[in-house]
């Protein structure tokens, strides 16, 4: 019996399709070649034993701090300097939502002859609808928790650290979606997101613990802008778009009017 060469075995292990069936058949019959393959496998197992040292918890931030001064300066928004390493966590959530959007996109794909024609724009829009919908839902929760909370009697300070932290994470997502909405020509959405961003920034820039008077003032600022209502309306609109697959408002003026009215 002619044995398989080392080169063939390495390629086989690597998934090389050429001559694969013949090698598989040979391996079934030949204990020598099977053993040789396991020896090669053992080398790869050994390779995995070499750990990469952890560069540290704040590695991502350090990379950016070192890199940023070297990048040519371009326009910088008013939010410049606000962003911190929490971005990764926030974007992790975004990525998870985009997964959901893809799954949704798959479920809502229309049947019929036109269905096969993939429209990248529509897919992108579906992704954004789901991602932004989730973002608005989470923003709404933070705003509701703050406006409905009552300071405990006898306590000198009110702890809003959890809401503040969540608002911080939401701000950076919000900014990306606002800019994308602007780019997509969805002015109503961009406008609501801009208002939401200001409120979120207000919360994010507050201390972790505030006095009852400061807390009340923050609640009033949130309520005076009616942002909770606007967020709910726009989120309902998004849910409707998600269900019906309605085109984005730049292609649907009725939708813009309705939201502007709201």
């Amino acid at each position, binding site marked *: 019996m002619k044995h398989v060469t080392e080169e063939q075995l*390495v390629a086989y292990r690597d998934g090389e399709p050429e001559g694969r069936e013949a090698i598989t058949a040979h391996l079934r019959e030949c204990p020598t070649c099977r053993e040789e393959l396991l*020896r*090669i496998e*053992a*080398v790869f197992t050994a*390779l995995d034993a*070499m750990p990469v040292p952890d560069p540290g918890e704040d590695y*991502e931030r350090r990379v950016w701090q070192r890199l940023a001064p070297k990048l040519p300066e371009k326009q910088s928004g008013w939010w410049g300097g606000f962003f911190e390493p929490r971005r990764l966590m926030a974007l992790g959530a975004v990525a998870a939502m985009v997964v959901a959007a893809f799954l949704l996109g798959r479920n809502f794909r229309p049947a019929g002859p036109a269905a096969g024609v993939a429209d990248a724009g529509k897919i992108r829009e579906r*992704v954004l609808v789901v991602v932004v919908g989730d973002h608005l839902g989470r923003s709404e929760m933070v705003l509701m928790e703050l406006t409905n909370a009552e300071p405990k009697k006898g306590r000198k300070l009110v702890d809003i650290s959890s809401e503040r932290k969540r608002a911080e994470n939401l701000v950076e997502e919000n900014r990306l979606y606002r800019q994308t909405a602007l780019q997509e020509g969805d002015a109503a959405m961009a406008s609501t997101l801009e208002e939401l961003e200001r409120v979120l920034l207000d919360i994010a820039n507050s201390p972790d613990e505030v006095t009852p008077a400061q807390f009340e003032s923050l609640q009033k600022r949130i309520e005076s802008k009616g942002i909770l209502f606007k967020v709910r309306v726009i989120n309902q609109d998004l849910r409707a778009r998600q269900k019906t697959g309605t085109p984005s408002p730049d292609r649907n003026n009725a939708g813009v009017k309705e939201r502007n009215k709201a």
Partner: protein
Amino acid sequence: MNEIAERLGAEAVSDAIAVERTLAGDREAYRVLVERHSRNLYRLAHRMTGNAQDAEEVVQEAFLRAYQKLRQFAGNANFGTWVYRIAANYAIDRMRQRGSEDAHRQQPDGPREEGLQVDPVADVPDRAPSPERLAQSAQLAARMKEALDALTPAERTAIVMRHWQGCAIEEIAAVLKSNSNATKNTVFRAVTKLRKALEPFAAGSAAARAMGTES
């Protein structure tokens, strides 16, 4: 598997938005990309260069070059894949440069490999008690480092990209500025060299366990 593909697709979409924003002049949007990919890039760079200082330098340079060439990228591929390639290109240049600088101080491969083969650790039985097994794995990692350091920059790049990063042969060939067949040969040469250096040791642990036999 499907979930991983969805996740990667999702990240690519999210990356594409950040790339668009960066190209529109929002430098802060680039930070999203840097913070998302820097850790993985560091792992690649460390495996390629073998030390933290060079790895950090590779990560910095890769992101800087990617920023400068972002318009050329123009959404043709996944940003992660693209910046990986830039990092690998820079790492291999750096390794080659280091190699020529250190050439006079380096020992030839032959004696080094022979030296590795007679290591008594190879005789440590597989079912050794836990502390010895730990020592064994620490020595295996040290041996691994030596064996990787003994590879040429092209071989090391090929094995790191293929084994750890799961890159396609064509992708590795692009970094090595070579063709697919030559790249396959490079991968094979790297495996053979590693095998020569590691097998006596690896056979005493992983292989024996996998095969249920001693070598």
